[in-house]
């Protein structure tokens, strides 16, 4: 065991990124329900210890008032702060969409560039653990459709660290989506100065037969399938978008130009999901080179079901990815 490189959990990586950002820039402040240590440092403990270190002036537990939380972040961002607002679970952004969409995303533009809104909204979600219809939705497609917002999702602790830091330091509003079911999975620890730039995809696994374009939790699932198919001689390249919007078209198109086949994979509902945009872009640019139409994997057309068997049947899966790959590779 002592040989193993240091590992950290996803949730911890987020904590460390916020800690570093707060240390580096005293304009970084945190707002959210139960986030201060007196309240336990967040329901998933992602902000644990930060109020002890930086004080409750900078790490503020709030009322259950998501509009007021995001609004306070928008307002302070307008005058030089770098607020990080936590929306406990992604479904709760539904009560704050006005502040996010009509204000955070638009104020730079509508002011003709006189002001900017360098805020980060952290939120977590994810199905597969029986939280049911109102606590598990992946809604990144909405936000990706809003000009002026960046949307980010990490697939492993080191990236989470590097991406969250970059999100906080970015001068645009960023939605940083965490994944509750994988909060406590481990991965190699990043170096303290590890930074992952926004807008740049990574290729955690190279391959030649098909590109699996994915992000967040889809990356682990895609890896697993790639591993399995490797034994049959099918070589999958995994592209981890990391920034969902605006996404790194260059890396995606380069990968698919090489493999000539692609499957886009995400946990969100497939219909009208982000996979549609990525698939369309690939078709638009590489149509004549493709071996087959781009495949898509996502979850089913239904609210997230509570009961495990239905939830499993509804949810995107490694089987779905495998089936889609086999379909397009013929």
């Amino acid at each position, binding site marked *: 065991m002592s040989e193993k490189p240091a590992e950290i959990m996803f949730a911890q990586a987020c904590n460390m990124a916020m800690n570093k950002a707060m240390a580096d820039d005293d304009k970084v402040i945190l707002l959210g329900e139960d986030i201060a240590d007196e309240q336990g440092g967040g329901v998933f403990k992602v902000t644990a210890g930060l109020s002890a270190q930086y004080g409750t002036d900078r790490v503020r537990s709030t*009322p*259950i008032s998501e509009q007021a939380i995001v609004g306070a972040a928008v307002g302070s961002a307008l005058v030089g702060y770098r607020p990080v607002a936590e929306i406990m679970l992604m479904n*709760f952004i539904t009560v704050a969409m006005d502040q996010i969409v009509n204000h955070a995303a638009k104020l730079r533009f509508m002011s003709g560039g006189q002001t900017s809104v360098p805020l980060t909204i952290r939120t977590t979600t994810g199905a597969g653990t029986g939280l049911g219809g109102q*606590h598990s939705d992946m809604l990144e497609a909405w936000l990706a459709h809003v000009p002026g917002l960046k949307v980010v999702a990490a697939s492993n602790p080191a990236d989470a660290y590097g991406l969250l830091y970059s999100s906080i330091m970015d001068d645009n509003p960023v939605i940083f989506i965490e994944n509750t079911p994988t909060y406590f999975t481990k991965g190699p620890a990043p170096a303290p100065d590890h930074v992952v730039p926004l807008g740049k995809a990574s290729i955690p696994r190279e391959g030649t037969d098909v590109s699996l374009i994915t992000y967040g939790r889809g990356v682990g699932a895609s890896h697993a399938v790639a591993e399995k198919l490797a034994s049959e001689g099918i070589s999958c390249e995994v592209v981890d978008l990391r920034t969902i919007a605006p996404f790194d078209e260059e890396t995606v198109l380069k990968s698919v130009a090489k493999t000539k086949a692609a499957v886009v994979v995400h946990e969100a509902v497939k219909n009208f999901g982000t996979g549609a945009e990525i698939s369309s872009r690939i078709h638009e640019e590489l149509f004549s080179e493709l071996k087959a139409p781009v495949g898509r994997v996502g979850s089913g*057309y239904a609210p997230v*079901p*509570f009961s495990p068997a239905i939830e499993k049947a509804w949810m995107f899966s490694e089987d779905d990815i495998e089936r889609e790959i086999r379909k397009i590779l013929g």
Partner: protein
Amino acid sequence: MADKDVLIDIFTRADLIMQSDIKFRKMIGAGQLQIVYYPVRGQEVVSAAMMAAVNQEDYLVTIYRGLHDQLAKGIPSKDLWAEFAGKMAGTCKGKGGPMHITHPETGVMVTTGIVGSGIPIANGLGLASQLEKDGKVTVCCFGDGASNIGAFHEGLNMAQIWKLPVIFLCQNNHYGEHTHMRDTTGSETIKQRGDGLGLRSVRVNGNDASEMYAAAKEAVEYARAGNGPTLIEAMTFRFHGHLLGDTSHYIPEEEMEQALKDDPMPILRQQLLDMQISETDIAAIEAKNAATIEEAAQFALDAPYPPGDEYRIDVLDVEIAA
């Protein structure tokens, strides 16, 4: 003091809630059930007394912490337990789960997991009753923390201007998740907010069956007479944290001690005894509840899960293609 029959009724409901809560926590602790559970121990009397003041046809809208409200309103234990366990025989075929109980036969129309969101929906039920002139009232339960969210404000105001037959029952257990009300709420009381919005508002000791029942009864009569909504701020406490596993680390020891001393259940039981209801009679109620729960729990464990492709049904009015 409410009369004997009423108190027995309230006790019967409250004891079923208490025993159910204990059993759920035990089964989850033992790994027999794997669910996120929001304990209701400590808040039994609030909902038992409230639901004793309404009829089965009256509507209820409640929240994730809703077991007490749902049982008090009359959902059969078997159906409810089976839903908590995610079984096809559950109230919602296992699709909703504990946070999303619906059971129209007993008037339980919505259980929401989004803080405050039941309030505007309760108005819609009230509006329907007003238009139908069906004489029904809608009870809408939520917590102290929920009074900080916009939907609370919009909903109470709309109910007031339209004089909707809705009773907003704020179960004030002092905490929203891990945060004390004093850190989140600019007003001293929730009642004050109701006053500010212009509706009839009262604040009562929700743990006192008679006081709670009287307030409930009055609000129900007021609503049925067409006078409009009431906000009842019912003071209570939750003994087992926000959700099972929460250690209540954020609750000062003395506060918890005092709350436990004020446990409404032994007090209500003693009140029955004081009214010359015999220990035997009380024990019979308790035994009957215990049997109901045993049966429900076993039923929930034994019942089959729904098939996977149930997810294509009930999304729209027609089945979705695979």
